[in-house]
């Protein structure tokens, strides 16, 4: 049987096939009320807790083997971590890669420093309500740096390595509370192959103190062809590649060293069209031949929050069908 997982985010609106579903769902209402000072941060935390439990149960019911909290508490992957560090402020909205989705650009205004964990409580809560293993997801230092404006370090390298030291602390704490799978997302690497040596040094810093965890390095939204075999020199046990936006990634498989594993993004997380089982089956069959069932897991191409909730659930069900067929 082939293992299945998700990349991270999950839609926050309710399923429309549930009674009483409207545009005005609980989390949205509570966030708005918090802005007006009508509810407390504790009310928000409880609303988020409820949605995390719901989203995890939805993944588990679909049959996903390794789940996430759906990033329900976050607006994107970068700002909850960057915004939590000393030395960084959040500024105006910018487009998140080539998606019609926006994030607040971090601006580095002073030395970047650890100011306590950014994701530990969230991971612990998710772990407490899940029956399946919960993957911890953090942004990579290169991706934070490339989505930010640096007004402090005069060198890109110094900025990236400073971010890496803070993320190392986060990763260490995640392992300490029990996370055994830590995924580090570096989508920005695909637009910046020249930064690969720096990204490698930075990732070495991030994972330096980890002893037990399986480290997943995730790239998505494009193919990693320009990175070539050197991508697999990065200190990770598992590599997530997006085979939907980057079909050329198939050419990279033969370059993977025998000890590394592949998390293959085979179901489109950014378009609602439900792919046919047979079409994706052919791709998965090829991956399975090359990797063997022990070294292959399947997932959507990226975080599922680009989709409406109903479609995200259908995508997960399709993913499980594809994995089931391939495992026969």
């Amino acid at each position, binding site marked *: 049987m082939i293992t299945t997982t998700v990349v991270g985010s999950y839609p926050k609106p309710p399923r*429309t096939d549930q009674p009483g579903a409207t545009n005005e769902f609980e989390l*949205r209402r509570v966030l708005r009320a918090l802005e007006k000072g009508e509810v407390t941060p504790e009310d928000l935390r409880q609303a988020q807790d409820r949605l995390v439990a719901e989203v995890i149960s939805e993944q588990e019911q679909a049959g996903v083997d390794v789940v996430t909290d759906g990033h329900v508490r976050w607006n994107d992957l970068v700002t909850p971590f960057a915004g939590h560090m000393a030395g960084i402020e959040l500024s*105006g*909205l910018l487009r998140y890669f080539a998606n019609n*989705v926006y*994030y607040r650009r971090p601006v580095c205004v002073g030395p970047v420093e650890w100011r306590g964990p950014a994701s530990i409580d969230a991971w612990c809560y998710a772990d407490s309500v899940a029956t399946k293993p919960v993957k911890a997801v953090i942004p990579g230092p290169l991706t934070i740096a490339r989505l930010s404006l640096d007004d402090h370090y005069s060198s890109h390298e110094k900025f990236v390595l400073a971010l890496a030291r803070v993320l190392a602390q986060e990763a260490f704490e995640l392992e300490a509370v029990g996370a055994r799978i830590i995924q580090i997302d570096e989508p920005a690497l695909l637009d910046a192959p020249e930064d690969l040596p720096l990204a490698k040094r930075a990732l070495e810093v991030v994972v330096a103190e980890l002893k037990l965890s399986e480290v997943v390095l995730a790239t998505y939204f494009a193919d990693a062809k320009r990175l070539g075999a050197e991508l697999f020199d990065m200190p990770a046990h598992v590599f997530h590649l997006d085979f939907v936006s980057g079909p050329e990634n198939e050419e990279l498989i033969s370059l993977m060293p025998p000890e590394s594993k592949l998390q293959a993004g085979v179901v489109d997380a950014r378009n*609602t069209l439900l792919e046919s089982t047979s079409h994706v089956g052919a791709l998965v069959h090829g991956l399975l031949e090359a990797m063997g069932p022990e070294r292959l897991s399947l997932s959507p191409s990226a975080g599922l929050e680009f*989709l409406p909730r109903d479609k995200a659930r259908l995508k997960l069900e399709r993913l499980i069908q594809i994995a089931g067929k391939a495992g026969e």
Partner: protein
Amino acid sequence: MFGIDLPGAGLWTTSVGSLPKPPYLTRARARYSRHEIGRAELKELELQATKEWIEFQNSIDTDLVVDGEQYRGDMVAFFAEELPGLEIGGLVRAYGNRYYRKPVATGPVGRDHAVTVKWWKFAQSLTDKPVKGMLTGPYTICDWSFDEHYGSRRAFVLDVAAAIRDEALDLEAAGARFIQIDEPAASTRMDEFSLVIEAMEIITAPLRTHTITHICYGAFHDAYPRMLDIPVDQIDLELANSDYSLLQSFQEHPFTKYLGLGVADVHSHVLEPVETMVEGIRRALKLLPADRLLIDPDCGLKTRTVKEAQAKLTNIKKAVDIVRAEL
């Protein structure tokens, strides 16, 4: 190339497109979505708000008027609701706590009726100044929609381009002398820039009017000077929110079209002082003559309050008057 037949020596004032909805209209839209009022009642208020915005633009002597898009939710959904082949899909998040219903192509996209012409005629009937025809570009409509039909971005974009061309021709036939086709998504994927150009060619080739496109900041430095290949007469750009840094690119590669010069940041509550706008216009005048410049806010003003938007437009007019006196 179609020039600008407006009175005066240049530095014409205009707006990019959207203007804020007055609170009574925002409330009515919410009630309409809860089925508490009907379409006719909502439309009455949309007409009223449009009338108020035209009257405001008349009052500050705006040279090239917009209808303010009081009847649109967002620029893509509005067309998706009207064009066969596109449907309004499920709720997705844009940023923060903001959500929108993202359109989906479920069949071949075409056009079976005019979408904007009645609104344009209504707005034009309220002013002696020309009113811009306002369309969303095909690349942006497709980039901001799901695709369950085409499986090819190019085929999708070219079909939508034909639909938007038909709309543009109807606007022209109704008397529009200025037609703007917005492509805010154009600078997101440089590898598809030739598709943006190909689609725009379909729309503007048969037109005999002054054509405009508005492009948001995005990867401007990658897109310039290539964006000069987009077959339109005028490109409207955000200048204020980058402190006019884009003008440096024009020194290296001269800007060869009419320029819509954005001098007010639409994402900020802060009202730019007249002097700052004057300075921005003067900097642009070092690179382009006055009769190639139109002065406006950076982008649509719909996220500001009515008061903030009016204050920004009023200051733009004051700044233009000061610089015009120096010409």
